[in-house]
């Protein structure tokens, strides 16, 4: 009976933890996408100085949420985001608009995909 109760407690922790984790990932993804879209707008307007500032903010935000992202997300995916962000920073610093936009679009895909795999959908289960 004791192990059954322990199992129920573990089960409750796992389910609650999963729900909270999904919510946090959704929130982080929304924030990253929002920030990324602002950078895109600034780059379109050739406002590279403000874009650089926002890229730094985005970078700091990712570092801040790193533990949560690394906890269950693919480490390879996080590395891809980091690489893309470094490239974006350099393209932006050297005013390479087209390349910077390409990196922003790639980041948009990566940020949007982040919570996608964790959503309770038949395609994810299968």
């Amino acid at each position, binding site marked *: 009976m004791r192990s*059954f109760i*322990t199992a129920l407690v573990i089960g409750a922790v*796992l389910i609650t933890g999963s729900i909270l984790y999904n919510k946090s990932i959704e929130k982080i993804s929304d924030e990253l996408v929002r920030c990324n879209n602002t950078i895109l707008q600034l780059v379109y307007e050739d406002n590279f100085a403000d874009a650089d500032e926002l890229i730094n903010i985005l970078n700091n935000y990712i570092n801040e949420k790193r533990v949560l992202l690394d906890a*269950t997300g693919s480490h*390879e995916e996080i590395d891809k985001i980091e690489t893309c962000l470094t490239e974006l920073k350099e393209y932006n610093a050297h005013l390479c608009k087209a390349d910077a936009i390409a990196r922003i679009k790639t980041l948009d895909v990566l940020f949007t995909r982040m919570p996608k795999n964790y959503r309770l959908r038949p395609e994810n289960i299968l």
Partner: protein
Amino acid sequence: MLILIIRTIILYGTVIFSMRIMGKRQLGELQPSELVVAIMISDLASVPMQSIDIPLFSGIVPVLTLIVVEICLSFFSSKSKPIRKILSGEPSILIYDGKINTKELRRLRFCISDLLEELRTNQYHNISDVQVAVLETNGKVSIIPKNKARTVTVEDMKVKDPANDGLPTIIVSEGSFNKNELKRAGLTEDKATKILNDEGVKDISEILLASLDATGKIFIQLND
């Protein structure tokens, strides 16, 4: 490298915790569902152990989920016969009344040589000595021998007042009293010390092991 060591230790701890929480049955004879869980746990734990690209949680969460499912299923199967039947199956009678049940053997894909091997493993070299053989749900074969082949019991020998061996109590182990065992033997530390002194032991720390059997006989092994 250090990361791998830490991850391995964490996963090792998780698997040990899992096996402990699943109980002693998991370490002995496994039921089909328990075997599945044991195989899956070992595989799930080893993948994130080897690759640092895979998050540790992708190993720990499925292992914990398996434990929860396994414990819940064993709890419900202990309460419900149909669930038990689905999860563990039912014992199969391979030999009944000294006659091999060929239909059952075929159904279980069990050949005669497998059956004979199981009988030999159980010390029955002659099939004519077997009254009933049952293939249990854990895969072991239980055998009930014919009267001519079974071992003689105390009852058969009509021994008057056979010695009651019982379970000996380990009153001292590695130089210290075992309080629970003393209680079981109905002794206090003072009484036990007196008994040990009578046996020539001056100090309890000299003792490696001291046990008391059901007849009150004491066994003492001193430290080297």
